[in-house]
């Protein structure tokens, strides 16, 4: 009798693990239902769904998710939508970089031909959405899309159910002079909405591209789960600015997976300002010798925001170069997480790698978790890493005050200086100006 009661209780109240599994199944069902049957590459979908289920929905007992607790999502039934939502044209105009050659605009992961601007496509550059680009490229796409995205439940979830993808393909030896901008706009017009932006960038051998990827929007209660695959082939160069300035009720989980060929140069500038909770998984694989990777990021958050940056750089060839600096400004109750892995196996002799994570804590309620992880097997390498957490330096404030600058303005100037080291490196003037304004408005 007693056993029966106990059984019925178990049936009525699922375990936390069952809850997470059910939640993940719900997400998988909604994104799979939203996929159009006419989209190519259908063979990616089912295996990805299986991988997602194998991983399960993360729980904070997993090392990889220790500091970033996703439980707040579990009570929100996010649903994918197949309707192309309306976008406030004025708000969209505010994020367009005038220097950009073309703009690809996606709304909740769906391509908007109307809002995009592809008039100035030069010779050697193909850009558009997966849906509109079918045909010639299909075979070439098949060899790249989904082939380097790496693992993880959210990557698999995206692959199982992305509705469209932005494609930027630069042909051999073509240097695209002006930046290409991809705007991923998120909106939730009919309750908690989920979107899965997907992007494929291929810079063929000897080519050069500057890419601006913008995640933005005015969404209330939104879940953005993005995957961007970038191929930087032999001797090619890609400069990538990744702006995450989503609405304050957004959960943002984004993957940037980069495969670099020999002698290639890739720079990523991830700037994180938005979302209530964000996680950026930045994964770089160097697949040839003498490959250079530069990662220069900034997370600047306040209120109750959380911004998590997880980077992995895998070197496996001689003469690889990695320069990584990630800075965080943490105000109010905000919380930043940085985890930087570098793999330097035996084959990666003569590696020159450095990693620095610097955190500026502006309030005594903020929190910073930082963890460098260098795994070095090769014995003839230069690898440096460091992490600092500091507050505004009282002596620096006094120095500025002694020149007639008020304490408040002095603090602002120091925050500005901290951020500008990263912002100044962004090669697009309008974005630099926008970010400078954001930082200047940071009052204590």
């Amino acid at each position, binding site marked *: 009798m007693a056993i029966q009661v106990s059984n019925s209780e178990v049936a009525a109240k699922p375990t936390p693990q069952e809850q997470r599994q059910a939640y993940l199944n719900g997400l998988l069902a909604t994104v799979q239902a939203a996929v159009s049957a006419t989209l190519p590459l259908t063979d990616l979908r089912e295996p990805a769904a299986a991988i997602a289920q194998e991983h399960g929905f993360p729980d904070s007992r997993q090392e990889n998710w220790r500091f970033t607790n996703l439980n707040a999502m579990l009570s929100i039934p996010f649903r994918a939508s197949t309707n192309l939502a309306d976008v406030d044209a004025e708000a969209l105009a505010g994020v367009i970089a005038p220097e950009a050659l073309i703009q690809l605009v996606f709304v909740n992961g769906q391509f908007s031909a109307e809002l995009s601007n592809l008039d100035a496509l030069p010779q050697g550059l193909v850009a558009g959405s997966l849906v509109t680009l079918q045909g010639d490229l299909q075979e070439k796409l098949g060899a790249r899309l989904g082939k380097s995205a790496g693992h993880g439940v959210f990557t698999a979830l995206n692959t199982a159910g992305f509705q469209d993808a932005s494609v930027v393909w630069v042909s051999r030896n073509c240097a695209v002079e002006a930046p290409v901008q991809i705007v991923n706009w998120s909106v939730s017009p009919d309750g908690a909405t989920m979107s899965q932006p997907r992007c494929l960038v291929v810079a063929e051998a000897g080519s050069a591209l500057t890419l601006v990827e913008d995640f933005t929007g005015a969404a209330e209660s939104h879940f953005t789960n993005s995957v961007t695959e970038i191929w930087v082939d032999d001797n090619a160069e890609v400069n990538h600015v990744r702006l995450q300035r989503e609405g304050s009720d957004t959960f943002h989980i984004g993957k940037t997976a980069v495969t670099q060929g020999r002698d290639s140069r890739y720079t990523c500038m991830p700037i994180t300002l938005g979302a209530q909770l964000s996680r950026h998984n930045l994964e770089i694989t160097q697949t040839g010798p003498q490959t250079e990777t530069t990662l220069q990021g900034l997370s600047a958050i306040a209120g109750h925001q959380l911004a998590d940056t997880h980077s992995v750089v895998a070197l496996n060839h001689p003469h690889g170069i990695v320069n990584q600096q990630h800075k965080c400004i943490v105000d109010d109750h905000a919380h930043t997480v940085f985890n930087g892995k570098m793999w330097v196996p035996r084959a990666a002799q003569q590696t020159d790698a450095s990693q620095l994570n610097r955190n500026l804590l502006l309030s005594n309620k903020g929190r910073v978790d930082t963890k460098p992880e260098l795994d070095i097997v090769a014995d003839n390498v230069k690898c440096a890493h460091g992490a600092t957490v500091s507050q505004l330096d009282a002596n620096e404030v006094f120095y500025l005050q002694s020149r007639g600058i008020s304490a408040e303005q002095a603090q602002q100037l120091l925050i500005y*200086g901290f951020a500008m080291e990263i912002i100044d490196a962004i090669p697009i003037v309008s974005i630099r100006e926008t970010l400078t304004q954001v930082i200047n408005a940071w009052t204590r």
Partner: protein
Amino acid sequence: MINENSNIILSVQNLRANVDGTEILKGINLEVKAGEVHAIMGLNGSGKSTFSKVLAGHPDYEVTGGEIVFKGQDISELEPHERATAGIFLAFQYPLAIPGVSNRDFLRVAFNAHRKARDEEELDVFDFDDLIEEKLDVVKMDAAFLDRSVNEGFSGGEKKRNEILQMALLEPTLAILDETDSGLDIDALKTVAGGVNQLTNPNNAVVMITHYQRLLNYIVPDFVHVVADGRIITTGGKELAERLEAEGYEDILAEHTVAA
């Protein structure tokens, strides 16, 4: 230059100050008139650098007694930036680096803070650039310095020249030079001293804090004060500095400690 009829710029009466509960200044008295150059000398730990920081309003120091009257106003309660815009300038012994902020922006923000305090219109970027290029000559600085981050990667001499450039720009009534000579080679010392000499006039005053007499060969003081244990124990002319250089501090300290 001593002129009995000049206005009193600074009057310090029986100034006492603590840091972390320890009394460092134990009753300093000093009067500085317009046009005068004062040197304050003393051994390490005598309180001479503390005195300069207290005048500038450093928050780590607590004034426990006495008064600081600057141009007729008691400034003990003023914030550091208010003292600065009132006309007090402290050239730091160890100027701080401010990464990410260009020297040009820093100087403009500081200059405009002074303009604002005088109810004058702020200078725009272009007018300011003209002004600052002019001032560079005072310390023989290259314009390239303006576009580097404040003091970041500057040599010792470059940092000190940058301090005097700020002084040239802000035109203080009272310039306090805290060990401006320390760590300088002779050429840099001459440049820095030459800059200070160009900036002195009958309406302003200089107080130099120094350990060595060497600087005083280039910026000649009207008064030399010797500080020991938080007090000025004796005052003389420039010959006092020469005697200190020749004999060391020991005898003079002994004479005046006995006298006290």
